[in-house]
């Protein structure tokens, strides 16, 4: 059912589907946002962290005497000073194949990556704390480091965890059908060795916390930018041995997160310990250099895949392995990311035989956790590269090969080759067709040879993608050993004056939560958006959410709001019917008005009904006073968004530089609540995907020292690096979600790497160059061109091939 149809059952659709500018914007553009760094309190103390300069070493001794003695220093904590009962944070996604690991507050006898927390100093000012940190002396005994995940698999490589037999945290096997038989009967087999670069979410606001213990009431107020505030509260309670209800997690404005703020971090615990011991508020703000070293990285995988096809180019099966570098510790999300990679390899294509070994290995680098796309870009890149390789092998156009293999709308719901996913709805060939039409594919193909004659190497790259949204049904999370829930709640209170307040557990990170939930609530009651307030970011008021913001779950919160509104409307109808001496069946609710059917001006307004509900002088028998309710929505299934990107690039074969000509996007996230916000999410996601494909890489030297510690050596896309995004939409509502909405926060980031690589390979087809490693820098391309003989006789290189 479309959102239009769905809403028309309830009333007029005024706000949903409209590009309403965001209510968040007025304060944020005025500089009146209140971010973590802006929170100051009387008596506040400042915490700084001493981090390991070593990638892998034994801690021989720590001397904190001079630091402790410095005037203005309130405390210095090392692992030895921490209360015994302080428990490390657990890993949330723990399939049986994953070895035990957890996130400890401070390193005790051993450091395992540059940036690992060794000690903290708490002082009157940030400056004093930083100066005192300089006085701490730590003696390390260096150990050999693991930097390369493949080498870390070797039996004699340095061990990261002494209690493990090797460095493998988990091997998760996907097995479906008979993949070896498929390969035995294949007419064509293509393969590739793929490297997906270590990069990171890199929000513009670094991490930070403010913790404040009230000794008299024994309560802890914790300002956090965590994407999972309720979950964090429960985990803090366990770690600190406090009841959940003694902890209030508050969220200020958050300057971007993209998954990096979903993980749990040592500083969360350390600030709590400090405030509890010192009885004063404690603030910690990460600087950018620390962010590079100790906020989660992501994506790094080395993969080998093979694809078997019949003589018509139909996929018979895929097999391979992905080795993921987790860094020095298993992240909060466990091997969730890597599991998603394995689970989305089939992408938009029909086949049954699949085998994959997903291997997660520890190394002496920063922990790798969540980043927008969560394993999806890591499967999209190899799969879409394989499609192009297969097209080349068969001598058919890459678009044509995709059409031959795509799942058709009538195949839905479609259980994929992994045996673990069922796509709900979608017109995959329709999205590809529309994207080709928008870009003018045939004409571009015709022009290509002529341009090459003029020395212009123009290439077209296609990237089709799927995106698992509304993560996810709680029972399903249980089945895959995700130790949290997937539902989303909404509380609505109509005040005595008749205005609406929505309480959400969603954490706004820039995705326009307030605006879109206000749109939903306003249409649910048929009222003005200005009459709806949205409250977020305070676990003492807002509904519990086990998962938090991430996993493209806004659609779940929206459904919860609709359901809660429905409850209150039913109650208002009962109260109005009682007052108007009519049967509830005869009372209509439209545009915030309640009237007896057929007598539109007979009725009551919402404020009038609210007054009756609050006065409670004359309510129907058994009716509870006031107007408030909470609804929880646990989706029955995932909503799979999907789409297709087509990019056009020119590559300068003398320099290896590339230049965007076009970037076309066709996305289907079901009906859109706010097209302005959807567009923003897509554009931002594509830019991040392009950054990962062309620019961004966390580089470590052989000793495990990070070479990228600032924006000077870690390049993010800027104004110059992004194309003009040309966007269109298809609309396939999800049957699992009221309104049909699918999530859309991560779609944009799925395909750009494949698009870029496919376009570059296409542009350089005369040289037979393949690009299977990211990032694709001009250096890399220039070397490939040189090796392919492109420079042998100057510009006449164009005649090669």
């Amino acid at each position, binding site marked *: 059912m479309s959102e239009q149809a769905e809403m028309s059952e309830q009333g007029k659709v005024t706000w949903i589907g409209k590009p309403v500018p965001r209510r968040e914007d007025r304060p944020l553009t005025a500089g009146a946002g209140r971010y973590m760094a802006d929170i100051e309190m009387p008596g506040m103390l400042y915490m700084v962290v001493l981090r390991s300069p070593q990638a892998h070493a034994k801690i021989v001794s720590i001397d904190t005497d001079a630091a402790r003695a410095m005037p203005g220093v309130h405390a210095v904590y090392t692992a030895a000073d921490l209360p015994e009962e302080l428990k490390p944070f657990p890993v949330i996604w723990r399939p049986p194949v994953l070895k035990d690991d957890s996130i400890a507050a401070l390193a005790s006898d051993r450091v395992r990556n540059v940036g690992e927390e060794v000690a903290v100093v708490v002082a009157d000012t940030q400056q004093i704390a930083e100066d005192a940190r300089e006085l701490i002396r730590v003696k390390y005994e260096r150990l050999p480091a693991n930097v390369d995940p493949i080498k870390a698999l070797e039996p004699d490589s340095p061990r990261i965890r002494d209690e493990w037999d090797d460095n493998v945290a988990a091997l998760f096997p996907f097995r479906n059908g008979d993949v070896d038989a498929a390969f035995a009967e294949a007419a064509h087999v293509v393969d590739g060795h793929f490297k997906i670069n270590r990069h990171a*979410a890199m929000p513009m606001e670094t991490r930070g916390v403010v913790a404040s213990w009230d000794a008299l009431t024994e309560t802890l107020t914790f300002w956090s930018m965590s994407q999972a505030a309720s979950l964090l509260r429960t985990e803090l309670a366990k770690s600190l041995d406090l009841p959940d209800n003694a902890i209030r997690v508050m969220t200020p404005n958050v300057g971007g997160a993209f998954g990096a703020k979903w993980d749990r971090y040592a500083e969360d615990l350390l600030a709590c310990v400090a405030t509890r011991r010192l009885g004063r508020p404690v603030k910690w703000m990460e600087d950018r250099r620390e962010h590079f070293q100790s906020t989660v990285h992501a994506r790094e995988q080395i993969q080998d895949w093979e694809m078997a096809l019949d003589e018509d180019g139909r996929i018979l099966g895929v097999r391979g392995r992905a080795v993921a570098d987790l860094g020095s510790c298993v992240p909060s999300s466990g091997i969730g990311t890597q599991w998603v990679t394995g689970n989305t390899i089939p992408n938009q294509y029909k086949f049954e035989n699949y085998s994959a070994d997903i291997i997660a290995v520890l190394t002496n680098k920063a922990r790798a956790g969540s980043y927008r796309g969560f394993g999806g870009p890591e499967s999209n890149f190899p799969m879409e590269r394989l499609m192009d390789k297969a097209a080349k092998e068969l001598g058919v156009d890459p678009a044509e090969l995709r059409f031959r293999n795509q799942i058709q709308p009538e195949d839905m719901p479609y259980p994929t080759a992994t045996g673990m996913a069922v796509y709900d709805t979608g017109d995959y060939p329709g999205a590809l067709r529309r994207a080709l039409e928008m870009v003018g594919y045939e004409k571009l193909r015709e022009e290509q040879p002529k341009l090459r004659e003029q020395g212009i190497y123009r290439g077209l790259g296609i990237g089709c993608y799927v995106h698992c949204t509304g993560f996810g049904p709680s029972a399903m999370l249980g089945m895959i050993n995700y130790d949290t829930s997937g539902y989303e709640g909404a509380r609505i209170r109509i005040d005595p004056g008749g205005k609406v307040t929505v309480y959400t557990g969603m954490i706004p990170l820039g995705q326009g939560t307030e605006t879109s939930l206000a749109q939903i609530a306003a249409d649910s009651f048929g009222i003005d958006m200005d009459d709806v307030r949205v409250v977020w970011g305070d676990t003492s008021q807002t509904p519990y959410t086990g998962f938090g913001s991430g996993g493209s779950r806004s659609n779940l919160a929206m459904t919860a709001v609709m359901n809660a509104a429905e409850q209150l409307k039913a109650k208002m109808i009962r109260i109005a019917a009682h007052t108007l001496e009519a049967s509830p069946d005869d009372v209509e609710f439209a545009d915030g008005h309640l009237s007896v059917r057929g007598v539109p001006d007979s009725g009551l307004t919402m404020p009038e009904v609210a007054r009756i509900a609050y006065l409670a002088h004359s309510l129907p028998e058994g009716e509870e006073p006031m107007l408030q309710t909470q609804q929880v929505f646990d989706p029955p299934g995932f909503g799979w968004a999907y789409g297709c990107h087509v990019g056009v690039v020119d590559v300068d074969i003398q320099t290896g530089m590339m230049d965007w000509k076009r970037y076309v996007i066709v996305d289907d996230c079901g009906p859109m609540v706010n097209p302005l916000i959807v567009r923003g999410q897509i554009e931002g996601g594509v830019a*991040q995907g392009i950054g990962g494909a062309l620019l961004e890489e966390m580089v470590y030297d052989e000793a495990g020292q990070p070479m990228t510690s600032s924006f000077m050596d870690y390049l993010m896309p800027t104004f110059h690096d992004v194309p003009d*995004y040309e966007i269109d939409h298809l609309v396939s509502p999800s049957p699992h979600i009221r309104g049909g909405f699918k999530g859309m926060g991560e779609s944009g980031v799925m395909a750009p790497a494949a698009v870029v690589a496919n376009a570059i390979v296409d542009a350089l087809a005369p040289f037979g160059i393949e690009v299977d490693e990211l990032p694709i820098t001009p250096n890399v391309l220039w070397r490939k061109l040189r090796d392919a003989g492109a420079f042998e006789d100057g510009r006449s290189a164009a005649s090669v091939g």
Partner: protein
Amino acid sequence: MTGERKISLRVNGRQHELEVEPRLSLADALRNELGYTGTHLGCEHGMCGACTVWLDGKSVRSCLMLAALADGAEVTTIEGLAPDGDSQHPLQAAFSKHHALQCGFCTPGMIMAAADLLQQNPHPSEEEVVDWMGGNICRCTGYRAIVRAVMDVAESGAAPPASDPEPEPSSVG
């Protein structure tokens, strides 16, 4: 603390006298000493532009500048950009209209940089906008919405021209 130095700053039309340590940056002085927290810090080494403010009418990175060196200067921050107290600068409205901000963390710096461009060059080409803004990083929007917002104001000519917003010129030096 040793070596504190007295300086005076005129911020958004208000005169402030303050004592600063020599190593205090202008950004920290604005944020921590004077409460202008609309100026954000994304990198503290001059690479992201989130801390962009105007010093004597020209955009600068306040994380790189020492507060002591700004002694006597006229500073404009995002809080003081709107031409008169209760309204918005056209760029502030255009950023919202074009959804040129998401988390809003880079936004004050973006707007301060773009407003400086428009006062120097009221009708820039798209290329000029891209070149001028090239040093400001945004992780959320993918940039094109910001270009659309700036171009909208450029084309409508709504941005106020360069002029000292204060009746009396500041007494620098």
